[in-house]
């Protein structure tokens, strides 16, 4: 398809200049609504109110409250990314290698597509209705088993509650991404390992996991970024009682808390750096993974 320009009659080739009109709207759109707004924030992070270059804003990120917010965010994103990877891997392994009926595999993949998109406000409501003070599971445990969740110190408006909720979109995303990688594991590799006398455990440790690790680590990075940027779920679930980085930024933009836009720039800049690093790792490892799994 790349040679098509050469095949076309020469009469149309001078119109290459005209072709630019086909892609110009896209670049204008990306510039106005994606690149310039982001650049504005990044540059703002290095300027003070008078427009002079400074590192003062970034320094403010290390004030105890902001640093704490970032730590909770990072912990939350890492924990849900790691657990999402583990549980998602088990489910993906079960449906690809576990000799389950075909319909179940398709049903799980379809459901994963839905669940990974069922984030935001409705997801928070579903978890409040399930694990809130009067939630379905809370009541079930109390009436059937005599377990008082809230008496044991559980609260849906907490780090643990938020982590449980985030897993609802993290696990399905892992299933969707890792299933093709698991399907790329060739039967011959397993047979070759077995014919050389390898046990199932040895096959996984010495053959399958070394092939899969770039995919696994890459997806971990992607899930981290996915959790880190999630704002709506957290706000709908906790109001603003749990101080995680995106909620602090949200309050900052609304002007609810401190009125220093340049601190807002710095928080936003730090968020971009973290998600960009995570996505960069994902893309690099993905390129590595594609060498093997084809």
């Amino acid at each position: 398809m790349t040679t098509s320009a050469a095949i076309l009659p020469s009469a149309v080739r001078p119109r290459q200049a005209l072709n630019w009109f086909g892609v110009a709207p896209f670049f204008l759109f990306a510039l106005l609504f994606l690149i310039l707004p982001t650049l504005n924030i990044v540059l703002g992070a290095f300027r003070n109110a008078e427009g002079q270059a400074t590192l003062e804003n970034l320094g403010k990120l290390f004030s105890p409250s902001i640093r704490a917010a970032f730590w909770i965010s990072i912990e939350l994103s890492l924990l849900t990314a790691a657990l999402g990877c583990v549980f998602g891997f088990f489910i993906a392994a079960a449906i690809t290698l576990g000799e389950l009926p075909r319909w179940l595999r398709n049903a799980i993949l379809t459901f994963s597509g839905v669940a990974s998109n069922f984030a935001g406000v409705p997801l928070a409501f579903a978890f409040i209705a399930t694990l809130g003070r009067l939630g379905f599971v809370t009541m079930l445990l109390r009436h059937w088993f005599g377990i008082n969740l809230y008496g044991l110190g559980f609260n849906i408006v907490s780090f643990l509650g938020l982590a449980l909720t985030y897993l609802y979109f993290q696990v399905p995303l892992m299933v969707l991404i890792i299933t093709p990688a698991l399907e790329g594991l060739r039967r011959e590799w397993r047979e070759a390992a077995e014919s050389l006398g390898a046990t199932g455990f040895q096959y996984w440790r010495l053959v399958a996991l070394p092939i899969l690790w770039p995919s696994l680590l890459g997806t971990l990075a992607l899930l981290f970024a996915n959790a880190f940027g999630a704002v709506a779920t957290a706000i709908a679930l906790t109001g603003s009682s749990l101080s995680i980085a995106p909620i602090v930024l949200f309050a900052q933009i609304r002007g609810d808390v401190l009125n220093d836009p340049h601190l807002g720039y710095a928080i936003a800049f730090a968020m971009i750096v973290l998600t960009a690093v995570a996505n960069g790792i994902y893309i690099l490892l993905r390129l590595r993974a594609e060498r093997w799994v084809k």
Partner: protein
Amino acid sequence: MMGKRLWSWLAVVLGGIYFLLPLVGMFDFSLRMQRGGYSFEAYRIVLADTQFQQTFGYSVMLALLTIVLGILIVVPTAYFVRLRFPGLRPIVEFITLLPLVIPPIVIVFGYIRIYNTSSILPLTGSWWGTNILLVFGYATLSLPYMYRSVDTGLRTIDIASLTEAAQSLGSGWARILAVVILPNVFVSVLSGAFLTFAIVIGEYVFAALLNVNSFGPYMVWMGGNRAYEPSALAVVAFAITWVCMGLIQLFTRFSKFSTVRR
């Protein structure tokens, strides 16, 4: 071998419990508004609420406009990049992936700083401007999904031959895109469109920070002020997500069928 199947079932059953309980919980809760029994009272109240009707209708409108804008931007770009500018491909792909890298809250923060009332282009100052900004913002959020599905669709057809054929019959670019290319990638465009719809309909952060009263902020307001109605809203939102994803599957299957027939 028996052990393997057992472990697989265990993983699927445990996963099933985790994923089904919140759905059961939210449905159960949404039916409990009247004491002493199940009823659809919460749904009745929500559906009869004029605020719901307004904000929901408004969000549907936003979603449809976003889809139209997304198609207008993405289809010509993907087409020209494939046909005329293969060298631009990495750059365009990189840009379309950026909305996944930059958190949405940062993008909307940038909008507020650039398009505020004291700027050259004061979009946030007027009702029309805010809506235009919101639709463009949503088009940005859906760009990765829209571009990927359209580009995948273009890969399966021979756009060079189709273009030559149309040109030899005297078509111009606009006509080629609208009459030849678009119908051929219609199914891919639709999958992108349904995904966009699912993203836009309940979106909260953009709408809240641009002070727009759409379905997302309405849901959050309900969550803070009512007990049972939020669950009913969550059920409605979940149903919409299912319908969108279901339609994508349906159309993809339909397109496979039509390719075989051709």
